């Protein structure tokens, strides 16, 4: 079973797009749409990396990232953040909170694939 990527995102079409791209390359993609319950999902089925949207219903991506980094079990997980609010302060906040990469929507599919590889290597 290939490496697992957890995508926390609430826009159905974006979920579908990213799932399609990464699955085609061999990653196993899990998705989760709700911010509030995202941490439970992270703990219950620990992925190899997380793609995290900022604007989520219930809880913001930043808060989830903070929790991920605060929990010893998950603190080393590579996290790539996605945001549609292309503002510098979001990028700064993501870096400060320990995101491994920050990506602004709309993204190029190739970029997503490159960065996932950069963070966790090949899917096998």
């Amino acid at each position, binding site marked *: 079973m290939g490496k697992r990527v957890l995508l926390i995102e*609430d*826009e*159905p*079409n*974006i979920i*579908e*797009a*990213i799932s*399609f*791209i990464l699955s*085609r390359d061999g990653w196993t993609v899990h998705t989760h749409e709700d911010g509030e319950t995202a941490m439970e999902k992270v703990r219950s089925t620990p992925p190899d990396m997380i793609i995290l949207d900022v*604007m989520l*219903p*219930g809880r913001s991506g930043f808060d989830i990232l903070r929790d991920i980094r605060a929990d010893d079990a998950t603190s080393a997980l590579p996290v790539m953040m996605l945001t*549609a*609010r*292309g*503002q510098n302060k979001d990028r700064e906040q993501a870096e400060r909170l320990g995101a491994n990469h920050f990506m*602004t*929507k*709309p*993204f*190029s*599919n*190739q970029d997503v694939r490159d960065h996932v590889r950069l963070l966790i290597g090949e899917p096998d």
Partner: protein
Amino acid sequence: MSFNLLIVVSLAYVAFLFLVAFWAERRARRSGAGWLRGPFVYTLSLSIYCTAWTFYGAVGYAARSGLEFVTIYLGPTLVMIGWWWVLRRLVRIGRTQRITSVADLISSRFGKSTSLGVIVTLLAIVAATPYIALQLKSVTQSFSVFAASGGSIWGQDDLNTAAIWVAIGLAIFTVLFGTRNLDSNERHSGIVIAIAVEAIVKLVALVAVGVFVVWGIAGGPAAVLAQIDQSPISSFQPAGGRWAAIIFLSAAAFICLPRMFQVLVVENADERNLRTASWAFPLYLMAMSLFVVPIAAVGLRLMPEGANPDLFVLTLPLAQGESGLAMLAFLGGFSSATSMVIVSTIALATMVSNHIVVPIWLNARTPGATMSGDVRYVIVLSRRLSIAAILALGYLYFRFSGTGAALAAIGLISFSGAVQILPALLGGIFWRGATRVGAALGLITGFAVWMWTMFLPSFGADVALSQAVLDQGPFGLSWLRPHALFGLDGMDQLVHGLMWSMLLNTAMFFAGSIMSFPRPLERFQGAQFVNVFEMSEGAKAWSGRGASAEDMLIMAQRILGGTEAQTLFQQEAAGQGKSGYLPDVSPDFILRLERELAGSVGAATAHAMIGQLTEGAAVSVEDLIAVADEAAQILEYSNQLEAKSAEQERTARALRDANEKLTALSIQKDAFLSQISHELRTPMTSIRSFSEILRDANVSDDDHTRYAGIIHAEALRLTRLLDDLLDLSVLENGQVTLHLQSGQLTDLLDRAIGAAGVHNANLGIARDRASEEIPLMTDLDRLVQVFVNVIANARKYCTVAQPALRIHAHEYGGRQVVDFIDNGHGIDRENQSMIFEKFARIEDEGKAGGAGLGLAICREIMARLGGEISYLPGKSGAAFRVTLPEPVSKPDAQVLLASQ
């Protein structure tokens, strides 16, 4: 001697006086009055007491009645030497109360009574009229003497004509002199100096004539004394009662005459001038009277039988061929007459304008009307007219009193009228119990008795009073005979009239004062006047002892402000030659400082402050009252300031609010941009991602179709979002064009329900069509847009098993409203307030497919249409109320269209 030359010399003399006055005024303006208002000029100005009556008339008086003329000089001498403290009191009161005339003094003392001011003014005018006539007469006679010496004997007509010209000339002269400028303190530096010059001219003229008579004609003092012994002058026996009466009369007149009050009190620049005048003025009077008897005696011996002794001063030199000396004597007499007339008419004109014209004028105007520039104009005009009128009265008296009466007799009648003021005046300044009623009663009584016993009879029989009235009394009431009041017959007419008028006047004054009760203002003024020395420190020069310059500076800084105070002190120090140090606390400096302070805090407060610093003096009651007065004014002022500062506070608050709003707006703008970014990027992300997938990879046909569908849907979403944004922007900027149409509410709802896609959903709609029969005149499409939005919201967000929307039109608060209430979960209370904000979708991002701008657009649309949309709290489901636009009448609609 040419009569024309005399005219020329007279005019030249007048021009000279005018120049002197002009120079003095300029000098006083430029560098302060200095010696121009010093004790000697003051003393000389008092010499207006010596009028033409004294100049010419004293000799005539002596020729007719021996030494009795001396009494005219004795009265003022006694006042100056023995009663100077009365004068000092008057001067002090005049200063502290800013008194402008004797009428003002009486009026002010008795509670600022207008009626008393009028009474005294009328009395003064009537009493002064004979005296002015006297001056006209003496000047006219002196002209006729010169005319006669030139060979033309004047008849009565010539005299009348000359008198008119003299009156007109004097009127012009006085108007030019006395009303050129309007001083707030009624002081006339120019006139005072001109009078002083005239005082010297008349003294020199009289002494010159006297010296000429004694040494030039009679041959030395011894010979003169011998001639006096032989003349009838020595044989007159002094009548005790008459002497006493005239001494009293002249003493009282010296205080009461309006013109004397003017020079003694109003024109007094310094109380200390009185000290010099108290010995110098009696000396002046002595010099004026020194040669009276010799001239009279020599005149009686040398001049032909029947020659008028009133004119000896002129006729003696002329008879001796000394035309130069005669000219000087003429100028002396002219000076005496003109100075008296000028000061007298100025004083009277001041009284007329201040106590009669201005009160009437102010009453005639609506209260509260502004009165700045015009008052000045009215005052000056009324004074000029008064001067002319008073001289006209003098001329009329001259015409109707006959010409036979001796100068001295007319003068005494005039004096007797003026002294009717005495009881109210003295009572006012010495007796706190004196009241307005008493003063008025006394004045009116004295005035009436004087008119009856002295003034009216002075015209002679059958002019004012018939011979029958003079002999038998009015209506045969013999006890009312003018010369034998209450049957007191056989007395000297002067003594009789004076005694009765003063007696009844004084009696009524006391009786009225005792029986009436003073008003508060009278009591207050009474205390101020009677206790003027105890209460006011005003006229006292500061000694400066006990005051330190530091204290002064600290106080000055507190009141004037740092820079101003320091500048003031530096200037003073530089003036004292100690630049860089604090100045010495000299009396002059303290006065200057007090004036500066008064400009800021008012005179009384400044005075009290200085008083405490310099002398540690207890603040007097008057000071306290004055301070309270000022405090009231300052309070008033500070109330205004407070109102202003409250206004500023409001403005500041409004500005703060605006600023907060702007900040909030700017934050909102950031949030809005961030939101727009998010809303735009999200569909773009899908579009880009799927289009890349379709481009790069082998995708199954199914997926291909599906992904193309997503791209299409997201593109539509993007378009809708941009449409909404543009729509909102247009609505918010008010650039929207409304298309007014008429329609029925029920039709609009039909359209909206159709457009909201309800038929595809299972949303049940409940309507009451009957209630929807409401005609509308508005932009129907926009209103439908709102309805669509609200209905679509219900379709999207009402997530119960059997969603239903009830649409209910009815009247509420006088307006037609349409309620849209669904049976869903409604909106949380905390969110109700923000659902109309942009991007306010609540926790259902993406689901509704909108950008969260719908309700914001609805709100803007309803605002443009003149209606409203609001959330109805308290219903089980989500509930919106659309308040329909006010029915617009056609013309208004046109205007609305035109304005947009």
